[in-house]
């Protein structure tokens, strides 16, 4: 078995299993902690608030956006870029078809995918550099933030190194980091990719009940 076969075979299946079970466990684990039912007389709908808040917090309020526009720019270019290249890069579509879903969808042309990758890289570097330079982010960051950022950066970087799509070793390296990243994911702050729904939703529900969505 070559190294590539290992990281795309057994290692990949172990990683994706840990990822899936871990994410579900943690996500459901949070819900299972439970919360008190609000007994005060409602002034609005909690469930509507749950949904509204999820969408409301995608857009920053103008008064705060003015202060943190660089952050918002970096955040959005990173996340949008990452989603585009994760789901619409030709090699990823092929991989998803072969290893996960069994079906694929039209992929982006190479140049569009590279532009998305550049946006993602620019955003990630910007956010990380800011994490180091900004006294506030420095104060509240812990090792998990840096490990998560660096791992994600390495996954993206090795993916970018393998862009010629002809060198097996580079593809294997990319897959290796993908596997590490997947295993690390459920134990780390990367979980925010899923928990943001709960976080925004619970606040939305609490205040939706009071007739306002913060």
């Amino acid at each position: 078995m070559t190294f590539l076969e290992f990281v795309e075979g057994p290692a990949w299946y172990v990683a994706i299993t840990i990822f899936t079970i871990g994410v579900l466990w943690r996500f459901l684990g949070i819900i299972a902690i439970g919360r008190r039912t609000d007994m005060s007389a409602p002034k609005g709908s909690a469930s509507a608030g749950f949904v509204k808040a999820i969408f409301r917090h995608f857009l920053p309020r103008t008064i705060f956006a003015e202060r943190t526009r660089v952050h918002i720019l970096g955040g959005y270019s990173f996340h949008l870029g990452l989603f585009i290249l994760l789901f619409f890069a030709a090699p990823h579509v092929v991989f998803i078809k072969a290893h996960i879903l069994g079906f694929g969808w039209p992929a982006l042309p190479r140049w569009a995918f590279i532009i998305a990758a550049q946006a993602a890289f620019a955003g990630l570097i910007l956010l990380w550099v800011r994490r180091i330079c900004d006294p506030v982010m420095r104060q509240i960051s812990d090792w998990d933030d840096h490990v998560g950022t660096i791992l994600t950066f390495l996954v993206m970087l090795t993916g970018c190194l393998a862009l010629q799509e002809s060198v097996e070793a580079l593809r294997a390296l990319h897959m290796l980091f993908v596997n590490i990243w997947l295993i690390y994911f459920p134990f780390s702050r990367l979980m925010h990719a899923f928990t943001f729904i709960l976080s925004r939703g619970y606040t939305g529900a609490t205040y939706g009940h009071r007739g306002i969505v913060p």
Partner: protein
Amino acid sequence: MSTKTSAPTQTAADQAVSKFLEYTHASTAAYFDACVHCGECAEACHFYLSTKNPIYTPIYKLQPMLKAYKRHKAPLSSIKRLFGLVPEQITKQELEEWSPLVYDSCNMCGRCTLACPMGIDIAFTIRKMREGFVAADIVPGDLRQSEKNALETGSPMRVQAKALQAQVRAQEKDCGIAIELDKKGADYLVILSSMEIMGYPEVIGSLAKIFKEAGIDWTISTKAYEATNVGIQIGSWDTARTLVQRVVDEAEHLGVKYVISPECGHAYSALRWQGPNLIGRSYDFEVIHIIELLHQLTTEGRLQMKSKNGRRLTLHDPCQIVRRGGLVKEPRALLNDVADHFEEMQGAGITNFCCGGGGGVSANSRAAKLQASAFECKMQQFNDIDGLELIVTPCANCRTVLEDGLEEHDSPLEVIGLSELLAQHLDHRQT
């Protein structure tokens, strides 16, 4: 480990931790797991903005509770513990160091939630975390004293029923309207904050005028007249419940249909939203905020303004009533009825700055300096409005804090309660 000296300190920290964990509900857990440490909340916090000190980043203030959650309660933490990847045990010393961040530098105003991309309700989590600090008895002395006063006398400022009666009588004389105390079967029960009773008793007269005009059957109780709830501020479930229970018992004893929450921010939150959860059941009566009632009366036409205020004025939004209580439109509609020159400050409405005195900070002398610097943000908002003369706010605590702050700045600006302003314009006398 359990030597004689370290044992009691350890238990204090343990008690705090167990409270932290008890109050870590699904929502809190989701908040802790979703936070990406982006620091946006700092940009919303007047304590950070006025000091530029990163330790006042709102989410940072939750550190002890976050550590307890990550060590003991977070899903998958048992696996992380195997690799030594969970935070250290919390010590009492750490909690003591954190006490100023928890009690002095947070008004529980909730502005940070609006800036948070994850929508984390930091303010309410602070409220929960204070439970742990109460359990470990690491609480600012002033708040402890207020709590003691409230439990013993019914008022954090030790305002006795006799004092209330005296103030009511004085107001009766002033406005010429009789106020019946402890009236059974009245429709509305008015409760007040000590601040109003002692500092702004004219509020009582104003209410009497308004209710007479609108033809409302109301009363004040001599047993449960205090609306404020120090338990909410200090973070003590038991105290908060006891204080809410008093009002509920008296309201149900008198058989009123409504309890009117006065112009006080956290009192509204305590009785309206947290009360039923504290006592574990819903009420036989409805809680209505005075602004809600006034708005209702004016829209129904039962209350008509006969004059308008000509001064340039603005509205300060009390956090617990507006941002976290949902009463955004009501005070504005009322003000537009009564003012010719009503101008909104920057960020008015749910993104308005707190006065800096909420969440027990104004009662906490240790926090005075910090509170004064946080007021800079508020002052800036006032300064940005050209020719501002009057600030209207439907919260007695905000009013005191603003008046103190303005005095500190030698500002000629005046502050007035909303219902008081309305009462002035029920007749044709122009102020």
